[in-house]
């Protein structure tokens, strides 16, 4: 693989541990009990950081020419379960082998319930400069249905501390469209979020992923997912409230103050290069995608035998690259250039200008860009254009 690559690598670092699994979550994460009966986080994650460091070294061997790293992202799982000093060791190793770009964005996801002011300060000290809290909702019964038990007030404390200890970029994640969430509940959440000292919001409509506890509850009729029309209304409520507060959409589900867009996530959407470290992590370099083995135990044993922990890979054909480009970039405010697609595709797209899903103004200036209404049917428009 050791080829020259077109852009420097970003790093995604996966911490596959949680104290408790939330009912809606299908991420590749494990509780200590799932990995080893009766154990705790310290025991199951023993030596894990060293494995990640080893994978950093493998990455370097594979990409000896890659330049200074523009972004790093600690995701999970619950990365804040790790000792900040250990996370710092990974950053240091990346710096030693690749170098960090001057303005390197280093993000960590955090659970507002399990951070203290001291912990946040320690995280900041490692060089992590952006933090994203999983708030999800400000309404207790909604949090409960999501299996999130935090006290909504904790989020205010956590974000305030984060600012105090020197995080200039503070983000929260919200989920709307949960079972039992009314439109009023959602307004409450939106208002609570906007009262926080934050620069960025990601807001996602709940997806019922197969295999989750939530999916079983939905199937059994124990909970009812609100209908799509209500969920669409909630998107509009959020988009308008966020914009009024000076946070504009820069991706379908992401809003930020000027200059506060998450550069790591942008890397995914513009097809940049990144290496995902850890079990189940996905990587992309110049049209090749691969993903690591999912289970931490398999990951560990492959790493210990000095093998790349790869589970599968694909080299994208031109048409697949094109599908990804359209599918990802249409979710951005600039959309895609009309000149980049065929006249037939333009003709299909034009019908969506007619019904107000694509911006007339953008169309006139040569681009295909979603309106607010259009953002809600983006997948449909992509299907129509690509099929």
């Amino acid at each position, binding site marked *: 693989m050791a080829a020259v690559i077109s852009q420097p690598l970003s790093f995604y670092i996966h911490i596959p541990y949680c104290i408790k699994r939330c009912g809606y979550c299908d991420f590749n994460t494990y509780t200590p009990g799932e990995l080893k009966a009766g154990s705790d986080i310290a025991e199951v994650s023993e030596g894990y950081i060293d494995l990640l460091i080893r994978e950093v070294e493998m990455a370097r061997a594979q990409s000896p020419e890659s330049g200074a790293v523009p972004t790093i992202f600690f995701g999970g799982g619950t990365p804040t379960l790790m000792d900040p000093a250990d996370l710092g060791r990974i950053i240091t190793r990346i710096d030693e082998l690749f170098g960090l770009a001057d303005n390197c964005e280093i993000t960590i996801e955090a659970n507002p319930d399990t951070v203290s002011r001291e912990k946040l300060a320690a995280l900041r000290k490692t060089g992590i400069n952006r933090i994203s809290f999983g708030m999800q909702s400000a309404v207790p019964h909604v949090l409960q249905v999501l299996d999130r038990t935090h006290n909504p007030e904790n989020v205010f404390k956590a974000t305030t501390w984060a600012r105090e200890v020197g995080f200039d970029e503070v983000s929260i994640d919200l989920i709307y469209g949960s079972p039992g969430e009314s439109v009023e509940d959602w307004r409450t959440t939106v208002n609570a979020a906007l009262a926080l000292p934050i620069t960025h919001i990601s807001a996602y409509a709940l997806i019922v992923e197969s295999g989750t506890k939530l999916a079983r509850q939905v199937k059994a009729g124990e909970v009812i997912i609100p209908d799509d*029309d209500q969920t669409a209304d909630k*998107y509009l409520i959020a988009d308008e409230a966020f914009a009024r507060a000076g946070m504009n959409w820069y991706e379908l589900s992401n809003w930020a103050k000027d200059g506060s867009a998450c550069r790591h996530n942008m890397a995914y959407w513009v097809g940049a290069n990144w290496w*995902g470290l850890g079990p189940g992590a*996905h*990587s992309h370099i110049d049209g090749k*995608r691969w993903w690591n083995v999912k289970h931490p135990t398999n990951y560990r044993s492959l790493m210990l035998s000095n093998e790349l922990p790869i589970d599968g890979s694909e080299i994208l054909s031109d048409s*697949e690259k094109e599908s990804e480009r359209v599918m990802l970039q249409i979710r951005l405010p600039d959309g895609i250039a009309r000149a980049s697609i065929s006249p037939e595709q333009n003709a299909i797209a034009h019908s969506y200008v007619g019904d107000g899903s694509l911006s007339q103004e953008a169309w006139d200036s040569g681009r295909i860009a979603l309106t607010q209404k259009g953002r809600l049917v983006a997948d449909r428009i992509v299907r129509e254009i690509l099929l």
Partner: protein
Amino acid sequence: MPAIELSKAPQPSKTNPAQIRNFCIIAHIDHGKSTLADRMLGITEVVELRNMRAQYLDRMDIERERGITIKSQAVRLPWRSGIDGQEYILNMIDTPGHVDFTYEVSRSLAACEGAVLLVDCAQGIEAQTLANLYLAMENNLTIIPVLNKIDLPAAQPEKFAEELAKLIGCQPEDVLRVSGKTGEGVVELLDQIVKQIPAPVGDPDAPARALIFDSVYDTYRGVVTYVRVVDGHLSTRDQIQMFSTGVRHEMLEVGVISPEPVVSKGLGVGEVGYVITGVKDVRQSRVGDTITTYHNPTTVALSGYKDPKPMVFSGLFPLDGADYPILREALDKLQLNDAALVFEPESSAALGFGFRCGFLGLLHMEIVRERLEREAGLSLISTAPSVVYRVVRDDAKEMIVTNPSEFPDGKIAQVFEPIVRATVLAPSEFIGTIMELCQERRGTLLGMDYLSEDRVEIRYTLPLAEIVFDFFDQLKSRTKGYASLDYEPVGEAEGDLVKVDIMLQGEKVDAFSQIVHKDKAYAYGVMMTSKLRELIPRQQFEVPIQAAIGSRIIARESIRAIRKDVLAKCYGGDISRKRKLLEKQKEGKKRMKMVGRVEVPQEAFIAALTTDTDGDKSKEKK
């Protein structure tokens, strides 16, 4: 043992008619005809025990699986009578058991001098059996009443012996009692066949006349035609001629079935066997036609020849439009073996290219569809079955409509629809229920008779269209499965009929048009529009669904425009998954049918075209 070794038995082509007995078995499906036939093959030793398999004579998988006989066959059974000790040849002519094949039944009966009336002594006689019994009596056949399954604990031989005796005018003690399963009484039955059924009578010196009672396409041999020789003699040296068409054929092979084919030199008066002429299509060798010889032809055909006339029409469309040529080939192939099947290309705006097919009835339709799917591996959509309407317009011009979408929109003076005379047999406790159903279906009561204390025969005239809809399912479910039904066409009647069209976004969906009685149009419209509202996914725009008679809207629903069709999250690991989903949707989109701008999934068509009770249930009905 009264069986005779084959080589020592009277040989085909020179068997004395006095030694021949031709008979058939009239029975309802599941009354044990095939088991009894198997038992006869065993007792006469024409099939060795080790070669025996259940339902030996039913050749098609479908026949064996459904336990029904679609096509008849004839088996030659040598038998030494236990009464007079003489040798005889019994020709057992198997008859199809279903109302759809009444004409074929009538030809099988015409080839016989007698019939075994076989009735399950736990169930009693069924409507179709009764109909076939009347047919046999009209043909002056000697009837031997037999109760089967006397080994069953639920058997009520006294009760049903009385019922049979009353029907055919004999004494209850004349009714034989057998068990096809254990073999009890079967030897006596064979002896009674010899004793009671008259030997065939014919003129051996007259020009040959043989009745075709079945015609089967065989992949290797071409058409195998089953005949009963009435006069004269057929031999391999002859050239034969079809009376109806005058077409001449070489005779490649003559033989009998015993129960595997045995080649013979010919067939004489009263004999039953097969001829092979190299004909490739059963329509050239039709059931009911008379075969004669080219060099010494008869001038008088055997009576009763009819062209089979399709009664029920339906469009068959391949799910995948690319399969159209395969469907055509498969229909061509089926037609080789099914003179009653007619079809012509049809194109539907909604369903694409397919064929308008005509069938003898619902079972025939189902069998054809099932064979197409099974034998050609096709997935098909069939439109709702329709009957044949005669439409007279205001300008006195007449047209025949077999496809609701061709029903004229202009001024219509009169519409005539086919009428049947239906016979329902059921326990008397269901009289009220049955009458209610028949009234709902525009029936007129003709009469009612008690067959026994607690069983009745109810006769109605009904529009065939009502039966074709879901009458049988309803009858079965409302009578807990106890009622049986038979019907025969008795002409046509004027009806107050209208065509209901279904429109999506103002665009007519031809596949959903239906001709219904005026009083039922509204109910049909409401049913279809609400069904479609559930079945069609939301689109980018609002889709009105309307039911209309001409330009008058009688029912409407609407599918609201979709507002949300997007997955919120799309990060590093989601990208491949999302792209693959897109590729899958691309495949799914190919199976969407476009009605104007509206995307309709094929499942919606299938579900909408299935009658409300349940499409699959019909598979179980016999």
